[in-house]
């Protein structure tokens, strides 16, 4: 009996069995089969490296902008489920790695990112990224360098004025002492905020101003409502490092004697509430005594207002005036105002004849200003405008200074015991 055919048949069956077994080269345990189904493949994937996107090569990052987020444009792979490895080092050769983020799942957005932990300030860093998919670990991408800027810290400004409980005008100047700082801070700016509550939930005015020499101030650009309590604070910031310091302690002030230009009764001259403020009062020097001729000096920054041809005759047909002094009196709770003395270039900013008993009657403003006799210490408002007393014949531009409040002085009634000239700090 020839057994060769039977042996061959068995060989064929064995071959078939072997082929069946060959279908899976990496057998898995039954308990693992479900999880591995469709995933366990001995053919590894081909992968292409991701590309670094941000921070861009050479990026300068402020220390305050940490944590840094690394963003890479996705690479590609022939099998799904890529994970990324980000490495950050302090040298280009990655000998000193400071952070490694592994197994970062590839994002479906086309860009995969990871947030780093805090990095030491004032250092250069290098980063690259690679992907792993389907059992293949790709090569690292090109390396990008970025720099974390120096650490800067700022203190809180110290309020100078107005301090808690102060009485102010409509546009007080907020002043703080400059902040302490550490680190290589750049040019500082200060953010001033004025609010109706100490919580600063409703900010009615704010501004960012550059740091002054020893102190920094901010003059409100518009009148605040009269007889209202406000709170203010300031904080310094360094744009170059992105560091913002803590705010100053909040201070309150009340605009109890503020002049609301829209509510002033203008007895002579135009309504100034619509005139643009282009100048500001620098100092007031005034004495209502007859012995001093009732001088009234209102110095101000001259914006260069144009001259208006003098229409009242005189020796010089080319004579021009360019400004008028203004006086504001609070009579029975209402502010009355009018354009007063003429100012011409070369003639200075002091005028005579504004005595305690003459400023009213000589004003020509009409009642009740004509009967007004300021008391010593009474707050009187002062301003200077472009030509405003003989409109429209002598009209030029509708511009003015701010309006300041200054206590009335009369050395014949009460001698000065202190500063006679008030300079308005800015």
């Amino acid at each position, binding site marked *: 009996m020839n057994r060769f*055919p039977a042996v*061959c*048949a068995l*060989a*064929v*069956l064995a*071959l*078939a*069995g*072997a*082929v*069946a*077994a*060959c*279908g*899976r*080269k990496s057998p898995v345990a039954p308990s693992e089969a479900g999880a591995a189904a469709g995933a366990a*493949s*001995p*053919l*590894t*994937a*081909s*992968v*292409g*490296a991701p*590309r670094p996107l941000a921070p861009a090569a050479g990026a300068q990052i402020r220390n305050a902008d940490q944590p840094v987020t690394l963003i890479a444009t996705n*690479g*590609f*792979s*022939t*099998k799904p489920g890529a994970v990324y490895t980000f490495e950050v080092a302090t040298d280009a050769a990655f000998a000193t790695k400071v952070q490694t983020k592994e197994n970062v799942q590839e994002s479906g957005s086309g860009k995969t990112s990871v947030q780093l932990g805090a990095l030491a300030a004032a250092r250069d860093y290098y980063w690259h990224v690679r992907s792993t998919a*389907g*059992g*293949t*670990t*790709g*090569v690292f*991408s090109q390396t990008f360098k970025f720099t974390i800027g120096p650490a800067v810290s700022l203190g809180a400004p110290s309020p100078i004025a107005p301090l808690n409980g102060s009485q102010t005008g409509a546009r007080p100047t907020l002043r703080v002492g400059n902040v302490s700082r550490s680190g290589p801070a750049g040019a500082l700016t200060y953010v001033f905020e004025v609010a109706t509550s100490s919580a600063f939930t409703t900010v009615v005015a704010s501004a960012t101003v550059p740091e002054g020499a020893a102190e920094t101030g901010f003059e409100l650009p518009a009148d605040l409502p009269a007889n209202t309590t406000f709170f203010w604070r300031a904080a310094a910031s360094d744009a170059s490092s992105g560091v913002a310091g803590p705010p100053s302690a909040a201070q309150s002030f009340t605009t109890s004697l503020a002049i609301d230009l829209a509510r002033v009764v203008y007895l002579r001259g135009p309504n100034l509430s619509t005139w643009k403020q282009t100048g500001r009062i620098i100092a007031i020097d005034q004495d209502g005594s007859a012995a001093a001729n009732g001088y009234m000096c209102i110095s101000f920054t001259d914006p260069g207002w144009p001259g208006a041809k003098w229409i009242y005759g005189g020796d010089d047909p080319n004579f021009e005036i360019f400004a008028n002094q203004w006086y504001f009196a609070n009579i029975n709770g209402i502010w009355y105002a009018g354009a007063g003395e003429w100012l011409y270039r070369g003639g200075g900013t002091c005028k005579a004849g504004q005595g305690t008993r003459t400023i009213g009657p000589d004003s020509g403003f009409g009642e009740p200003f004509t009967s007004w006799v300021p008391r010593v210490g009474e707050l009187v408002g002062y301003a200077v405008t472009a030509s405003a007393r003989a409109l429209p014949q002598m009209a030029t531009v509708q511009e003015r200074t701010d309006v300041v409040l200054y206590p009335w002085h009369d050395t014949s009634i009460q001698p000065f015991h202190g500063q006679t000239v008030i300079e308005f700090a800015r």
Partner: protein
Amino acid sequence: MKHALTVIAISTALAAGTAQAQTTTVPPTGEPRAGRYVAGLGGWTFGDKGSQFFGVEGGFAWTPDLDVFVEGGRVRDAAGQGIHDAANIVATGLARIQPGVIVETRQPAVFFGGGLRYRLRLGHSRAEPFLLGGAGFSRVEQDVTFLAGGTDITGTLDQWGVVLGTDLSGSFTAGHIVAGGGLVMPFGRQTFLEVSYRLMRIFAEDEGITANRGGLGFGIRF
């Protein structure tokens, strides 16, 4: 793999049943039959990709109607869709860096296997149809070439940030099954021509490769 086992089992059962029923059957032609044969085969493949193949087959008569055969050969390119898709992913990724990257893919396969051939009788005709089924192993080579501007960059892909996996490089061995049929046309006393079609399915790990082999052969019985 269940399909492979099923085909083999059916073939084996069919062969065994036929062998038992015809152990005493004499060939209708009454011609003496040589028990062994060897043949050379060649032809075209079609399926996932058209190509050519060549091979050698040998066997012997287990029963008057059933041959046991072994075969070996080479398919020039059995590339399936899977390698095309994977290669195109890489080429597209490379094109983002260097426009104009193209890819050429081939999967040459060397196969070896065996099985059973069942001869059908056509009265007194000398032509002899047959059906066959079998199994074996194939070694498949992943031959992928990336060209940028006509220059082969396959060897420098790491410079482009690309690492090829075994899905696009190297080679692998996988089992295969084969089934088909054909017609043997004897001429002379010992020689014959063969026309055959064989469906070969290679169980590649990610995606099976199908090669339809249609070919001609010349053989000798001895």
